[in-house]
């Protein structure tokens, strides 16, 4: 089956590798701010993760054709990419903010200032930028976007569940709060190194 070999397998591999092996938070160290800021409760961590998935996937889908336009020989402005990406991402975040405020005021409240801060979440710009820098085609950049953002959602949710248990456990006084959270994040990053080489 040529379709499976040339398309489906690389597509699935790209999703898995950007989700688990090259995890955006734990091995590329993007998006640490919401990772630490919104991970106190699983509920809001899930909301943050879903919002980031939405923004990353949509931003990649919009930015890829725009980059092709910028790279046309007649236009020849590939250096404008970052400026345009920031414009697209900022507008998308505004849109997500409007939606969440309307349909889930409690989530809007628990995300607080971190919702507009998705604009400056380097994971979003990082994914979009690396898609076009590597010259990926549209399907591959969507695979990269989905994999990376679902990886973010997965890790922030797991981390928030760990933090809930940490809250009720007997931590030494000096480590309480953010300190133990950072140690936990480091151990999680070490655990994710164990997945290296899984996708061959």
């Amino acid at each position: 089956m040529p379709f499976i070999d040339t398309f489906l397998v690389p597509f699935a591999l790209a999703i898995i590798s950007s989700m688990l092996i090259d995890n955006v938070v734990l091995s590329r160290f993007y998006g640490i701010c919401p990772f630490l800021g919104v991970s106190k409760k699983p509920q809001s961590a899930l909301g943050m993760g879903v919002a980031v998935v939405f923004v990353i996937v949509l931003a990649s889908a919009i930015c890829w054709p725009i980059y092709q336009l910028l790279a046309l020989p007649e236009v020849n402005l590939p250096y404008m990419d970052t400026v345009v990406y920031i414009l697209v991402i900022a507008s998308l975040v505004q849109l997500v903010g409007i939606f969440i405020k309307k349909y889930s005021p409690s989530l809007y409240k628990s995300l607080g200032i971190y919702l507009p801060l998705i604009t400056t979440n380097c994971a979003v710009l990082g994914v979009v930028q690396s898609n076009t820098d590597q010259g990926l085609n549209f399907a591959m950049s969507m695979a990269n976007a989905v994999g990376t953002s679902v990886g973010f959602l997965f890790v922030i949710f797991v981390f928030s569940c760990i933090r809930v248990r940490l809250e009720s456990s007997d931590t030494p006084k000096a480590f309480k709060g953010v300190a133990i959270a950072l140690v936990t994040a480091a151990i999680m990053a070490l655990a994710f190194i164990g997945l290296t080489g899984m996708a061959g």
Partner: protein
Amino acid sequence: MAFLWAIIILAGLGFIFGIVLSICAVIFAVKEDERIGEVAKLLPNYNCGSCGYAGCAQMAEAVVKGQEKKLSKCKPGKPDANFNKIIEYLDKHPNEDGTKIKVEI
């Protein structure tokens, strides 16, 4: 000519996104006490979180809803620049039933 393209593309994208956003803002508008926005404007707007709320907008909401009485929880705020103005504003804009929101520094 390249710079002209740059201007056209950026201005065009900005225009399109602006229109889409403003349409969405009207369709999905949420009715909100307008005093919350005014009080938020009078806060320092550093969004530092040292008051215990997620940001200045959340602190302003708590103040207007009467859940927060002490303005000095806002650490970067100054009495003359922020707190007294908020007290004055809330004094001039009572609740619908006529009662006033009482806050102190």
